Structures are given as C-alpha cells and as structure tokens.
C-alpha cells in the first residue's frame, strides 16, 4: 500500500507515527490492517503524553523545584470537572496543538478515531467519511461549501486519523509561544517535505528521525520536566519542556525558521559522532531540502508559513546562529532606551529576516535601523557582501571589501574618539561628577552612558552625510573631511584600495548604493577592541513566556 497525502499535515502525522513506532520502515506497511494498527498505536502513545502535572506541593517550604510527569491515558480528562486545569498544575504539553478550552474535545475525538480504526475490517473502511473538527484539525473550521449553513469539512478516516496524530505527536518542534502580548498558545512547526523522492529517499522520514534523535539526546531528561519555584512567593511556571521540546531552545522564546535551523545546527556540532543522525552531511542534505520550502507554524489560534534561504544552512553549521542572535540583541539602536521599546522588537524582527532571506530587500530593512552592532556580525557582513545577491553583475573583490571594512572602522573609531572626549568634558563641567575620583563607580557609569549616547549621535550624523551624498566623489570627500576634522588624522591606510575604487566612478566597479551600504554596515560595527558593554543594554532577552500561577489561585482557564 502506497500511503501518501497531498496535505503536509496528515503526511507529517503518518511520518511521525512510523518513527515513533520503533522507526518502522515504509516497506513494513503493506495492508490496510498495518495502516490501521500504526495509527491506533500512535494515538495511544500520544494520549499517554498529552498533559503534564505535578504531585509536588508548591506551598511546602522544602520544595525548591517541581517535578512534572505525564498524565496516564486512563486518567486523562482535561477540564474543570476533573480538576485537570492550569490552575491546579495540569498543563497540556506544548506539542498538543489545541486550546485549553478545546482540550477535552481533542481527547474525545482522538479516542473516537482510535475506536473507529479498531473497527476497520476492509480497505474501504479506511476511506469512510469522517468530519474534520478543529479540536484535532486546527487548520480547519466550519465552512460554507455551497450549502446554506456552515458545516465541518469532510475527510476520510485515514486522513482524519493521521491529522489527529500530527496534532498530538511530540515529534514536531514545539513551544508554548507568546504570539501576542499577553496571549499564549501551543505552537508547532510542520515541515512540507515529500514522503517519497525521485531518488528513492524519504526526506520527511529523515527529518522526523533527526528530530527524534535530537530529543533522545537532550530532551528526554529529568531537567526538561522540572519547573523552577520562586521560593519567596511560591509561584511556579510550566516546566522547561514548554520552552521547547528540542535542544538549544531559542533564547528569545520564538518559534520560527531561524530558531529551528539554529537548534539543529548547534545540536549537530555538539553531537557529531556521538549520535546516529548527528552527521553533518546528512543534516546538510535535510536542511538544504527544507530551504525554500514552506515551514508551517501552526497553533489553534493561527497558522502561517515561513521559509529560509540556503545560505542559512552554512551559517548554522560553519558559524553559530545563536552567537549572531546575541550580537543582534547587544546592538545599541539609536533612539531606543527602554527594554520593551517596540522599535527594538522591530529591529530584532528585521535582523531575523535578514538571517532568513539574506537578500537585498531584507538587508535594506535591517540597515534602516540606525544602530551600533556587536563585532560578531563582521563575518555575517563579509558573507553578505561577497554573495551574489549583493554583487549582482559587478565584480567587487574580497580585497576591496576588506578595505571597505577598514574605511568603516576608521569612521567608527573617529566617532569613538570624539565621543569619549566630549563625555569627559561634560563630566568635568558637571558639579555632580567633577570632584569624584576617576575610578568612582558612579562617575564611570555616567561617563560610559554619555560616551554611548554621543557616539550614537555622531555616527548618525555621519550616516546622514553618507546617505545624502549624490555622487561617488561627494561620498568620499564628505566622509574624509568630517573624519579629518573630528580626529585631526587621516583615514586608515588600509582603506586606500576601497577609496580608489570608489573614486573611479566612471568604471562603475562599485555603484554608489553599494558603496554607501558597505561604508555604513562596517561603520556600525563595534571594533573588536571595544570595551565591554554595560549590563543594561537596550534590548534584553525578556523571560516573558511565563505564566506565573500561585497555588492559591483558583482562577480557572476557560
């Protein structure tokens, strides 16, 4: 029997069922009975991993953290009547793609489907009509298909069963996600890979096997099922599992293309030769297969797709996406002072898109935010400027790019020199600080604050001049003269090659737009010798993916 599905959702459920059942091979599925048995076993397995709960009492002084365990399938009964609700410490696992209000229905429907599968006696029974309900098919809703009123969309028992399995399976990347301010939902990624490939491989099965292996090494541990307890107010959160059912959980608590590729990349690098599927070539093949294909981010509340470009695979495996993300977080954005400034969040989104697509449009959006970046972004810029996307038809050699970097860094250094001087002068002028010793903590902190602010202002002024230049020569003269005035010195000699290329505007080796982008990008990089940033950086990881519930609260979820 050649089982396949047009829709990626039940297709994923089928693949997950195979891998979960001791890595069954497709060749072992020959009869309708094999299919029915596979689905029954997958649903039973999933119902034993639907909800987690804790028997520890958070009000006891001796308890420092809470241990969670799965509710057994026999006891599983989400809802107010049984007391299996969030307020009483019962949480749905993050890979169960339903809502708190719908969870009871999900369980009922899963059991119904399993029972219907047990009744299958012929091939035809597998294709008997079944209605798709949102509780186990989150992509569906009642629809008006030419009838007077809306009704649930129809499917076959086969499709419904594997759709339900996709909704329940733990073999998909999932997080308890804050998708809007104050709103949370279990969210998972369903990948759109084929079950059968022309080359005789099974890409979707390979992906699920890889994910299964990742979980085996890092997720099926005690730590994942623990929740920290705030020893003062006795409040606790969901266990670590809810921050992601895969290793290298995203530090920004988001579930997107970049966090998935990053998690996989980091796992391979750390587990090479230690685990069956932690093989760089194997993973590269899968990731390249995934690139340019939709990743469906699905929850009960919303569904959308994302994609990433092939270059991200190289970044994930040869450098480190988490390090790049940290560099983004440590960027200082002009005008952003507070941690929760929406402009800061927008910058991070533009940065994520740049990593995802690595094309001219995403680069422009990223550059639109005036900021100073951590030095780790140097390699990212080098990769981008050396890519076909930036080069297009022109031939800008790697040496010119290196020279452009020297040019940009000269500007950055010049801004630093001036800012430091101005900050010192300001301190000397102020009554509050001038009499404090130079190493006084308060004075040092104030000086640092002023340095950052002034440097940002100077860099912004420089950028304005750069962007307003209307010719190659004007671009060079504006910047060189300004730097000379600021520092009394010339620009670094290493920048000569770049300046010569730009000055020869008639051979158009470097277009005006390209020159501006090169200068600005490198100018915004903090030099490698830059001092440590102070602790209060404008954007920080904020651990707001928690629901803090006190054990006394009897407020119940709907």
């Amino acid at each position, binding site marked *: 029997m050649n089982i396949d599905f*047009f*829709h*990626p*959702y039940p297709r994923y459920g089928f693949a997950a069922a195979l891998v979960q059942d001791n890595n069954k091979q497709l060749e072992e599925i020959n009869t309708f009975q094999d299919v029915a048995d596979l689905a029954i076993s997958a649903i039973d397995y999933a119902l034993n991993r639907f909800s987690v709960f804790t028997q520890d009492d958070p009000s006891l002084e001796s308890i420092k953290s809470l241990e969670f365990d799965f509710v057994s399938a026999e006891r599983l009964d989400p809802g107010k009547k049984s007391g299996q609700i969030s307020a009483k410490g019962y949480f749905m696992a993050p890979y169960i793609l339903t809502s708190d209000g719908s969870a009871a229905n999900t369980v009922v429907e899963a059991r119904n489907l399993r029972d219907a599968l047990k009744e299958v006696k012929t091939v035809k029974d597998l294709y008997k009509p079944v209605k*798709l309900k*949102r509780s186990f*098919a*989150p*992509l*569906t*809703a*009642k*629809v*008006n*298909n*030419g009838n007077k009123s809306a009704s649930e*969309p*129809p*499917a076959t028992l086969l*499709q419904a069963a594997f*759709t339900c399995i996709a909704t329940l399976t733990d073999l998909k990347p999932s997080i308890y996600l804050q998708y809007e301010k104050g709103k949370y939902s279990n969210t998972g990624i369903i990948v759109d890979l084929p079950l059968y490939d022309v080359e005789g491989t099974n890409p979707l099965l390979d992906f699920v096997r890889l994910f299964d292996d990742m979980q085996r090494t890092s997720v099926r541990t005690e730590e994942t099922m623990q929740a920290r307890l705030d020893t003062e107010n006795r409040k606790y959160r969901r266990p670590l599992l809810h921050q992601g059912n895969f290793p290298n959980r995203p530090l920004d608590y988001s579930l997107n293309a970049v966090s998935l590729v990053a998690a996989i990349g980091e796992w391979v690098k750390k587990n090479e030769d230690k685990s069956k599927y932690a093989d760089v070539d194997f993973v590269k093949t899968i990731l390249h297969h995934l690139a340019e294909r*939709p990743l*469906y981010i*699905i929850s009960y509340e*919303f*569904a*959308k*797709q994302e*994609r990433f470009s092939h270059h991200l695979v190289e970044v994930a495996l040869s450098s480190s996406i988490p390090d790049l993300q940290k560099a983004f977080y440590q960027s200082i954005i002009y005008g952003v002072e507070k941690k929760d400034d929406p402009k800061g969040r927008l910058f991070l989104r533009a940065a994520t898109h740049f990593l995802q697509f690595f094309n001219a449009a995403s680069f422009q959006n990223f550059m639109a935010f005036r900021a100073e970046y951590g030095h780790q972004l140097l390699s990212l810029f080098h990769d981008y400027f050396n890519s076909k996307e930036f080069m297009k038809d022109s031939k800008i050699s790697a040496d010119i790019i290196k020279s452009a970097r020297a040019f940009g860094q000269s500007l950055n250094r010049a801004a630093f020199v001036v800012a430091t001087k101005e900050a010192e002068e300001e301190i000397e002028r102020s009554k509050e600080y001038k009499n404090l010793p130079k190493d006084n903590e308060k004075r040092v902190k104030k000086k640092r604050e002023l340095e950052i602010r002034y440097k940002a202002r100077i860099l912004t002024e420089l950028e304005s001049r750069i962007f307003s230049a209307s010719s190659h020569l004007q671009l060079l003269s504006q910047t060189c003269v300004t730097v000379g005035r600021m520092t009394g010195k010339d620009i670094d000699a290493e920048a000569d090659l770049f300046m010569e290329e730009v000055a020869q505007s008639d051979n158009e080796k470097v277009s005006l737009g390209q020159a501006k982008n090169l200068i600005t990008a490198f100018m915004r990089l903090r030099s490698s010798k830059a001092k440590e940033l102070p602790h209060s950086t404008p954007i920080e990881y904020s651990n707001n993916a928690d629901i803090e519930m006190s054990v006394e609260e009897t407020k119940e979820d709907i």
Partner: protein
Amino acid sequence: MDFTFFFDPPVHSVHLTLEIDSLSPLSMASGQPGNYYQSLRIPTYHMLYGMLENALGWHFAEDIRKDIFKAMQKTAKKKFRKDAQWASSDWLNAIPESSGVKYFSFLQFHLTFDGPKQEPRVNTYDDLWAQSLRDSGRSFFGGSRHYDALLENVINRVRKGEIEFGDRSEFKDVSLEELDKLPIDAKINYRAIRSLFPQYYTSLPTIREYIEPEEPYVFDIHTTEAVSAKIIKAIENPEAPLYLGANDGWVEAKIIRP
C-alpha cells in the same frame, strides 16, 4: 450547448497535450479548509475538468447538472443496451465520480487526463482571501451598509424601535410598496427586503496559501474525436475566464495536437 458527444462510445482515440500557464498566483484547496487554506502544488483532475467545462460554458446548479446527466446516461444506455462491449460499462451505468465540493464533470467518461510529467517548482506565500457568501437576509441587515436608498426610512424606524425585522414565523412578508406604510410594532421578515441588498456579502478575511508555479503545467489528454474538437475550439475562445482553484487564480491554457 451540444451534448451529443455523450452518445458516442468513449473510445479515446485522440491524444492531446494540455499546457496551463498561470497568469496570477493560484490557491488550490488541499482538503483542510477553514482556518488556513494550504494549496495543492498541482491541480486535481476534477479542477481540470472544471476548467474545460468553464471554457465550454457548462455552468449548472447541482440539481440541474444531476438531471442533465441522468437524462444523457439514460438515452445512451437505451442506444447501446444491446452492445456487449458497452452494456455494463461505467459510461452507461456508474454514478459519476465527484470532487469534494460535489462537482462532477459530464466529460469524465469521454476524456481522461495523465500527468503532469513534472511537478514545477513553486514559490509559496500567505495572503488574505475572503469568500463571497449569500444569505436569506439575516446577515445583511444590520451588518451591511450597501442597501438601496428606499430603505433609509425603514432602517430609521427600526433604530427608533417602531418596527422589527426577524426570521421566525411571526415575522410577515410584505411587498415593497407597503414598506413605507408599516404600522408601529410591525414585524417583518428579512425576505421582504432581501432584494434591496447586494447579492453577496464578503466573509471575514482568512489567511490562504498562494503558489506561483515557475513553469507551466503539462498534462496529457486522451479523448474522443468529438470531444477533442469541442475542447480545442473552446480553449481557443473560452466562454468564461479560465481559473484553477480559487477563482482569482487565472490561467491561460493551450491544447496542442502532438
């Protein structure tokens, strides 16, 4: 409209190539509709039949289509009842195969598809889509601002609480002339004013996946002489715009005789 092709035995002696190029992004429902519409990458054969019938101008309501088919099959069966080759064939006896939305094609016995030879590479993205829906009047009233000026007074009176609209049995039908002379506390059915509202209202926008195929779809067609002549003519000069999937997915089709 000429359905005499149906009375020919379905001998697929003619082989053609159908090439379909998308003119705008396509969204072909893949079976889990409602909250998020994922798209098929290749149209189904039912969609292709639909496209051909669109070109032919064969657009019928469900019940009329069923009646026409029954009549055709009955006539054909009478003619070929004694012919051993065709007497028990699907063409003369079977219930036609229909799609998920209960569409079935008259052509399905006399024309079959093969392919596509290759699945083209597609770009995919999400966009918003809304459905045009019809209603007996309940959804429009109080919800739509697009109504005939004649209703202005009536609606003012409803707002003042003088008259009431509803759809239960105690709400009566009135003619349009009586609308301005209604007594206080009159109860009128929505049906009475339905004609003063547009035919369709637009549903809430839903996220839907659209695809942009990078190459045309190429299918093989096996059909009878009569049908091949019909569809070649129809595709060259279609009765209605051709589309696949959602009806903003316009396509251009070519039939080539290899």
